[in-house]
Each structure stands twice: as C-alpha cells, then as structure tokens.
C-alpha cells in the first residue's frame, strides 16, 4: 500500500511539488521510533525525534549529505498499533539538512513515498 500526498497539504506551501524543500507544513508528531536508514551503499540506524506525513527528523551517529536520496524504514510498535507484529513503514525521501551537536547528527528529510510493509 503506497500513499501520495493530499492536495490540502500543499495549501500552506502554495505550490505543488517543487516548493522549497525545507518547508514541512504537516503536523509533526513527537515520536521516537527506531529507523533503519540507507543512504547510497551505507545502511545505519537512527531514531526519530519527530515525524509528520511529509517529513522526518532523525538523530543518528553519522553525517548524511543534504540532497542525498535516502530509503528508510520506521518501526511502529505492534502493541500500540494493535497488530501482532510491529508495523514497518518503508519510505523514500531526500535529506534536507544535517546538523550536529553533542548528541549526534540531526537529519531532516522529506517523505516522498511510503508503503506499509508489515502485515
């Protein structure tokens, strides 16, 4: 099952698709979810700091270049989702920016496509 963005999401962006990629207008949920992220040939773990239907903010231990195309999977706990197993959502997106501080690298990325993978 894959999803595309409803038009309403674009009202506040006042455009479709080629708007400034830094703007995320969907509501951000403050969730800490485990993520497996793949950028190029490299695959590594991360944790979300917040997630919206159009973007994600992650904490990880390595730098990712802005503009990089990434594929990542978010795992939602089955106990909360009412499923026998965790729900895995596979996403494809693009890194908007990557900053660092003492806790690690903070990566902001878009969610351009998603699929519910675990059923």
């Amino acid at each position, binding site marked *: *099952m894959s999803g595309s963005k409803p038009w309403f999401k674009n009202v506040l962006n006042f455009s479709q698709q080629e708007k400034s990629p830094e703007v995320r207008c969907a509501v951000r949920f*403050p969730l800490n979810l485990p993520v497996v992220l793949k950028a190029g040939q490299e695959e590594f773990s991360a944790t979300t700091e917040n997630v*919206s239907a159009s973007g994600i903010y992650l904490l990880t231990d390595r730098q990712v270049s802005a503009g990089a195309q990434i594929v990542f999977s978010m795992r939602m706990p089955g106990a909360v*989702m*009412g499923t026998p197993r965790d729900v895995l959502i596979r996403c494809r997106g693009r890194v908007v920016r990557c900053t660092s501080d003492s806790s690690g690298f903070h990566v902001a990325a878009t969610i351009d496509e998603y699929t519910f993978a675990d*059923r």
Partner: protein
Amino acid sequence: MKKQNEGAEYDENESEARPDAIRIILADSQAIYRVGIRKIFALEDDLRVVAQADSVDNLYSAVERFPSDVVLLEGGMLTGTSDAIPKVLQIAPEVKIIVQATQSEESSTVELYRRGVRGVISRAISPDLLVKCVRKIAHSETWIDNQSVNMVIEAYRSQAATLVNPRSQPKLSAKEMAIITCITQGKRNKEIAYQLGTSDQVVKNYLRKIYDKLGVGDRLELALYCLHNKIIQPDEAESAQGVSPR
C-alpha cells in the same frame, strides 16, 4: 454558436480564441452571471468558455464531456452537496476549481481549500481581478486573499493542537475504529471491505469521514496519529481481525 442541452450549454465556435487558450467551464445557477462572465472572458484571447452548467449534475456532465483547465463554480451550487468538489476532481483530476462565494459562504473557505479548490473569490470581484485569478490558477498557482490566509493558518494551528493533544480526540464509532485498525495494519481498501463484509466504496467513504474527523490527510498521518494518541485498544484490534465476511 451555442447549443443547449438540459441546463448545460457548450460553445462550438472555437475559432476566436488562441489554440492554447485556457478552457473554462462556467457553473452558475444564475444565467445573468454566466452571461456577464462570458462577456468578460470574450474580451481575452487566451480565455475560452467551453461549456456552461446551471446545476451540479450538469457540471459533472460538462466536466466529463469537455476537456477544460478551469471550472468557475458558484458557491451557492454547493449547498446540500458534500462531495461535489472531490467528485469533479475525480472526473477530471487536472482541472482547477475556483469557487465564487458570497459573504456568508466565506466561512467555509478552509473546507473548500481542503477539498481541492484552488481559489475562493467573491461574487463581487472586479472583471480585471477575475481574469487575473483565472490565469494564475490555470498556471497552477493558488489564489487566496489575506483574510483567507489567516483563516487557513488558524485552521492549521487548531488542527495541529488537536492532533497532538490526546485530550481532544473526537469520538469514533465501532466501525470507524475497526477500519482504522485495519489501515494501521497496512491493509488495502479491498481487503478491509472483504474483512468487514462491505464494499470498497463504503470503505473509502468511511476513510474520508475518518480523515475529516481526525484532521489527518492520509494513511501515514492516520498511523502517526494513532500511535501518538494510542487510540487503538487491544480488543478493537482483535475484533477487527475476527469479523468474518458475508
């Protein structure tokens, strides 16, 4: 030369406008408005009225029958219909809709944009601005005035507060909860319909209602909402799995 067909009119004379002219369908229950707007557009060689409709049903027929770029729709025609905009967009996904609203209808501005309208203008708009609006929207821009911007942003703020505040969750019926549980399990509409003993279209209707109730826009946002607000109870998950089809 115009032809009439049960409340819809279409113009066979296509030679006056440019070949790449913006094709417009006028949907207005009041003939005087249709005549007036048509005269305004006739002065512009990049605007061409391809059809007119005086009711929602005739609008559906016109949109289906005549390729168009913009639909200029009287807001009053939407009274009593909840899904006219989505239905027009379903028939012609590329068409861009402008709604002409009276003062009293402007409170539904946010909902109009949410449903897919590209511009909301006043019935009292000047001819020059109307032409400008049609051109902008035909070129994929959104037309929104300052007051509407404030309304949309305020609606967004309220929605954001509602979505992340567990205490303000709307009440969901048992069937809605069952469908939400199936969605968060990654099931497709057809699978859900089969499991719940209903049709694909009914599931889609429920989904639209759920999205509107919770203020979410798609399956992912629904899943995030459920996760954040912990709205799925274990017994609801079990009953969603255990319902047998007809």
